[in-house]
């Protein structure tokens, strides 16, 4: 799958494929016609900065480096046909127009959608994009840059259902810690089957958190793939419920999940995630609901509200 298709799929998944009008049946939904202006930039300190602005006035700046992603989302106003004006209080400001260079190409809708092909216009933006991350972990400031506008017609798409059975076969253990109180955090670790390639005997750690700061939504996430050792079950026969997690950076510390003599479960330790420019976020404690599955069943713990 080409990068373009991937980018388009991500856009659809994250921004646009919200059921917008009444679906023809319960298995499908329709997507109104629209567009997204996409600008790809290089930020300081090795970060990639992507800007997306759509016809629904949502403007997103996505900053990423080595599996760590920070997404800043606000609402803007239209400037010209495909340009936008939006403020990111405390972080910067975006104001540009799009100028097409005459080149364009067509692209197919995602496999789960039916409809005519979309149209991608190539060109550049003229104006200003200025953005500084927290503590200036990255920054970008441009007055013109290459850009692309993707325009799609009305689409009819089917709801995607995860194939649970297939997923169940792939992993041998999953651990999830969910902090539902503010700030919401979701931390998961999945250990994959040894027969699976290329993820054989690998553990995938994910963390996702979101909050509203300075009037804008900021979502941060990280994904790290490690060997088997950071997901340790010291005594799988006698005490399969006791788990020790030591994921690699940007995580730090250790999380320990244990059954107590009262047959309740504790989730303790100094495990935290370090997102760029902000204080480390603790990933253990009473506020986390836990869902740990391995062998034949699952263990659940409710978090303190």
């Amino acid at each position, binding site marked *: 799958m080409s990068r373009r298709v991937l980018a388009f799929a991500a856009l659809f998944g994250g921004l646009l494929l919200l059921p917008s009008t009444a679906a023809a049946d319960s298995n499908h939904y329709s997507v109104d016609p629209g567009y997204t202006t996409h600008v790809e930039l290089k930020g300081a300190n090795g970060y990639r900065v992507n800007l997306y602005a759509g016809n629904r006035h949502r403007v997103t700046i996505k900053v990423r480096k080595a599996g760590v992603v920070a997404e800043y989302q606000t609402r803007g106003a239209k400037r010209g046909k495909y340009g936008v004006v939006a403020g990111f209080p405390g972080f910067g400001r975006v104001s540009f127009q799009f100028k097409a260079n005459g080149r364009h190409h067509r692209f197919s809708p995602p496999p789960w959608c039916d409809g005519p092909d979309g149209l991608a216009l190539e060109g550049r933006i003229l104006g200003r994009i200025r953005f500084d991350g927290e503590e200036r972990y990255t920054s970008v400031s441009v007055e013109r840059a290459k850009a692309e506008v993707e325009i799609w017609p009305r689409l009819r798409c089917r709801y995607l259902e995860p194939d649970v059975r297939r997923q169940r076969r792939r992993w041998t253990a999953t651990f999830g810690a969910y902090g539902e109180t503010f700030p919401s955090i979701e931390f998961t670790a999945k250990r994959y089957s040894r027969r699976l390639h290329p993820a054989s005997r690998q553990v995938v750690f994910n963390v996702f958190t979101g909050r509203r700061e300075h009037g804008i939504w900021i979502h941060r996430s990280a994904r790290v793939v490690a060997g088997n050792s950071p997901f340790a079950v010291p005594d799988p*026969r*006698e*005490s*399969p*419920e006791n788990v020790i997690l030591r994921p690699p950076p940007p995580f730090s510390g250790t999380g320990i999940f244990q*059954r107590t*003599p*009262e*047959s*309740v479960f504790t989730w303790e330790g100094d495990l935290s995630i370090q997102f760029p420019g902000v204080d480390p976020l603790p990933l253990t404690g009473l506020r986390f609901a836990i869902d*740990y*599955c*391995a*062998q*034949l*069943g*699952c*263990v*659940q*713990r*409710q978090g303190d*509200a």
Partner: protein
Amino acid sequence: MFVGAKAKCGVAALGLLIVLSCLAAPVSSARSQPHPEVRPASTGALIYFGSSGGYELGISMPSPKIAVLYAFRQVGEGSDERSNSSSAFVQSAYAVRVKGNSLEKGRIRAVFPTLGRVSLRFEPNGKRELHPAGYGCRGKQQVTEYGSFRGSVSLEGEGGYFDLATRSGDGSLIRSPRAVCRSEDSGGEDEGIDPRWAYVGAGFGSFIYSPGDGSTVLLYAAARTPYSTIGMRVAHRESAPAGAEVDVQVLELRHGIAIGRSAWVQSNVPGTLTSSLPGEHPASATLKPSSPFQGEGSFLENSSTSHSWTGNLTVSLPGMDVPLTGPDFKTSLCVVSPLKAPAGCDFIRPNLVGSARPKVPPGWSGR
């Protein structure tokens, strides 16, 4: 006749208890294949007398030949699933045989030895309901008539824990016409048990009260004498906060009366139940439940054929305090991991073992 809200609640609570008790009652058939069975015409009654000494009181007559007196009380606060609190119910039930068949005429005459007697006549208030003959039955509809039972009631619990002297109670009379029913094997009937015990055993227990999660820790303690049995079930459900569900039932037969006393506690108080972890040996557990229990009990698995169950644990049941530890008790402890046994301990057969060493026949050496 006007029936007050409190009386309605009492009747509802009592009705629930009776339904639960009947669910626990054995079925009369013991054959292995489904077969048609004729259910003769019968009459039943349900009467609510109000409260005395903090107990809600009522009489149920599942048939004209059996009368069951119920005394029911809630102890403590209502329990929130997540808070550190507990709520408890205590109940006693007394079942006696009734002579004659006067219930068909709306009359009840029952003697509860050492407690007192009732002599009542039913006065309908005109309200009646029709119900189907029952699941798997063919026959005319059951008729429930509502009204009052009037006459005299004089009953006193052991030690005076309730004292009831009244001339009336609200209730209903249920007439069930003859029906042909499909009967199936009950599977677990113990023919040595007096049929009256079937009506005094409480319907408490995990399969009725628990929301369906398996128990990851399950402790049983039971003692039996020729005229009484004591049974206790302590369960910690998967995903539940610290604490345990404790269910005690004492059944006895004396003076021609079958008595069932029971207590049920849902305790979310930390420290109620601690145990060794799955696979840890020797397995051990300590139980320290809240009111109406006092003291604590300690379980220790000496071997697969010897468990010790010691301590000063007692329970205050209606009319008597009952010790719940000692060498007469046989015990069983199950501690499992939900990862290895997703259904928990509930479907694992208890290994009830006493503290005495088993006698080894000559020529055998214990391992």
